[in-house]
């Protein structure tokens, strides 16, 4: 295929005007010995039907049709067709970052509304225009706290998503930050109140990675007592029914925003949500769309507080982020407006009710236990008498993606399998899952 419009005659004509003979002459100023003299080992061009057959074949070699009980931040919620129909408008899909505000009012206003709705669900007044995903948003939250407190120690709960902890660890290493992990006991964080040190931040999941609902008041009071920022990693759908991090007194909230408007997409592209108190506004990483007026006094939107950003501030910027996940934020905004206050609450409540129904069913299976003794929301660990990696493969043969094996990140939970439930799972799915799990264990 070829997406350049030029005919050979066009090329000849243009080269002639430039006083060049052959297309290669365009590169004659590049030192000859650096230029490639032979063809690279690249594929033969394909026609469109051939490309579709090739890529379609790859797609077909994935087992995507399984009934999904995996979560860990990426959830299989119902996605109304209206979200894709509007998100895929070419004006949204094929535009650049909205630097030229006059020709970018559409994206800028959607981002303003996205920011407003992220503020609404997190209970915090300021939200940005998106980050890459939940875990990298967690890293940005830590960076913000380190800059705001001028401290270099970070306390994280072991109940924080292990991938978020790994991303923080990757950068902490380079930045000489000390990361101190606090254990989980019975599923909840057991903060070491008397631990020495001056943390910049205390970071925890709400609900945490194991699905357990943490005690906001304890974490927030301890953080503020230590002079640290209280940072909560939240599940955006659960904010339909759980107390918001803003209401609980947190300084920063971040989230994996995929459940809002985005398919699971093998984990990307998804969208990071990021919200802060008004006091921290000027430390926010990434883009911010702000409301203003034009020369006629008409309402309009523009990228604002730009002096935080890399293209203005260079080495002193609050973050290096440039391209973020705008189209995924557009999808999230459309989905949030479709859900409204009651839709998000019902989605959250149904997911929780169904998770607890499934947990009751699983508890009845011989030699299987629920791995926590604290209240959980829509996700919970199951302790199996078998290797959970093997169980996942056996369950896949029965049509289920059973969950996320936990021993890789929690060696103290051998046999652990993290099971997530969304409102999409019917009673038949839940009963079928429990029956299949019982069979797999009985067959072993």
């Amino acid at each position: 295929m070829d997406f350049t419009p030029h005919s050979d005659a066009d090329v000849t004509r243009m080269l002639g005007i430039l006083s060049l003979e052959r297309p290669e002459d365009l590169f004659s100023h590049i030192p000859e010995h650096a230029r490639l003299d032979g063809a690279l080992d690249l594929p033969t061009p394909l026609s469109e039907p051939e490309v579709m057959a090739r890529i379609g074949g790859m797609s077909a070699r994935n087992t995507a049709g399984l009934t999904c009980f995996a979560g860990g931040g990426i959830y299989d919620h119902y996605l109304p067709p209206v979200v894709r129909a509007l998100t895929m408008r070419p004006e949204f899909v094929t535009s650049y970052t909205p630097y030229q505000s006059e020709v970018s009012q559409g994206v800028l206003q959607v981002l303003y509304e996205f920011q407003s709705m992220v503020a609404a669900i997190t209970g915090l007044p300021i939200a940005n225009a998106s980050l890459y995903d939940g875990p990298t948003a967690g890293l940005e939250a830590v960076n913000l706290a380190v800059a705001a407190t001028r401290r270099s120690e970070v306390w994280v709960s072991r109940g924080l998503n292990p991938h978020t902890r790994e991303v923080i660890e990757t950068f902490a290493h380079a930045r000489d930050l000390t990361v101190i992990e606090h254990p989980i006991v019975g599923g909840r964080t057991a903060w070491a109140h008397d631990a020495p040190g001056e943390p910049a931040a205390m970071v925890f999941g709400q609900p945490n990675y194991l699905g357990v609902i943490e005690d906001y008041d304890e974490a927030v009071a301890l953080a503020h007592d230590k002079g640290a920022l209280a940072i909560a990693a939240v599940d955006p759908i659960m904010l339909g029914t759980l107390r918001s991090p803003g209401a609980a007194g947190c300084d920063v909230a971040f989230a994996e925003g995929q459940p809002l408007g985005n398919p699971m997409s093998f984990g990307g592209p998804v969208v990071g949500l990021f919200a802060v108190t008004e006091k921290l506004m000027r430390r926010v990483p990434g883009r911010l769309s702000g409301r203003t007026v034009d020369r006629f006094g008409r309402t309009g939107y523009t990228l604002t507080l730009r002096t935080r950003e890399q293209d203005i501030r260079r080495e002193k910027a609050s973050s290096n982020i440039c391209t973020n996940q705008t189209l995924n934020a557009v999808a999230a905004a459309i989905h949030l407006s479709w859900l409204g206050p009651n839709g998000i609450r019902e989605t959250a409540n149904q997911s929780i009710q169904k998770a607890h129904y499934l947990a009751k069913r699983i508890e009845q299976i011989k030699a299987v236990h629920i791995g926590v003794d604290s209240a959980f929301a829509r996700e919970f660990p199951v302790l199996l008498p078998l290797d959970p990696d093997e169980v996942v493969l056996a369950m896949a043969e029965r049509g289920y993606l059973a969950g996320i094996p936990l021993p890789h990140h929690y060696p103290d939970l051998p046999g652990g399998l993290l099971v997530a439930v969304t409102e999409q799972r019917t009673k038949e799915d839940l009963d079928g899952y429990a029956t299949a799990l019982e069979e797999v264990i009985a067959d072993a």
Partner: protein
Amino acid sequence: MRDPGARASSTPLVGGSAEPTLRDLSAPGRQAWSLPDLDVPRRNLDLPEMADAPPALPEVAERDLVAHFTRLAHRNFGVDLGAYPLGSCTMKYNPKVCDWAAELPGFRDLHPSAPAQLTQGILEAVVEAERILCELTGMSRASFQPPAGAAGELTGLLIMRAYHQEKGHPRHKVVIPDASHGTNPASVTLAGYEAVSVPSNAKGMVDIDALRAVVDEDTAGLMLTNPNTLGLFEEDIEVIAQIIHEVDGLVYYDGANLNAILGVVRPGDMGFDIVHSNLHKTFATPHGGGGPGSGPVAVVERLIQYLPGPIPTPAGDGAIVWEQPAASIGRVHGNHGNMLVVVRALTYMLALGGPGLERVAQRSVLNARYLEHLVGKEYAIPYTAPCMHEFVASAENLKKETGIRAMDVAKALPDYGFHAPTVYFPLVVDEALMLEPTETESPETVEALAKALLEIADVARQDPEYLHDAPHHTPVSRLDDAGAARSPVLTWFMEDSQ
């Protein structure tokens, strides 16, 4: 009002009054959502931390929200509407077949934790994209975890750090040209390094003597775009690489401008050790109004062990498994990176094949050179070296003569149906206009763009006030950016507290 008289896309944006916000469209009791009734017995779970009321989201009917977002789309320019010569951003046409690929349920509905045995198809796509990318860049292996260019830069710098750390000391300085993208110095700081700037010479290229003067045993490496941000090929690139290698530093290639050299010359052959590519530029994945992108990092053989992981790797039996590089810097994304962007890019690579990818470089340079030729008489080209896929022109003469600045020229272009160029970047050129037509615009479109730029210069002489007020055919004009920053209103909630 002047009629710019170009194509139908001259005035693609519907002007007039503002679009209400969702909050304005909201009324209690309106509803778009629909869910089945709960089909398991509802229990009183008595959970802690429950909210008293649901979040304060708007309540809108589906019909109203569809009209709202459609009208907002009408207020936005995109590549599908017309040429988008935004320099350094490579806003080329995004083929629809690539969108089709990313929507396939076999990719779209995959959970990232699904084991490799169940996801061989997408892993094959990643392995194939990695192979083609390495062949084009002259590198050995790549990781697709970095979700954007800036994330790729940071990843590359952490690899640099790990390399030096293993030799005993991470070093302190990273050298970057003064004309580099702002993400470069910002990434350097985030990686715990100090950015040392090196000036460009009168030819618009790295000043070799100045480079020698700042490079020493404490230099971890150099970050460079080639062609550079002026659109010029750094002719002394091999000397530059040698200077860095002499102190055992690493040379980092910022792939922002990779489009210009596909199949012509490879970063690996020029002496680069680490390369990030922007799939959302060079490999035609749509920019989405500011993402998602994808910024894979590729490295030479001796740095493979530091790549972020795990990485899909073919095992002996033909199956693809996740493999963690031996001394990996760790994880830089929550999952595997922007995988559906990689699927789009692979679709593009396979469609074009080797000859098509080489044609991309040729025709992007041809279009840029042609546009430069057409507008050069009016807008001075400050450097004499032939441009690659983009060039920087200056409106300095126009400003002296008429008071019309680069910003005014940029603001006037949308009235002609074109997006604005990048302005005031790089900072080394006064009144800079950075134009990148890309290879997917026809000669006629390039000519129409040139004609518009020349006409704007004419208008500047006859009626500068008209240009001070441009654009005239857009929904809003000349927003109060200073006011927006002085009293920020970033959410509905801040409107209420004003």
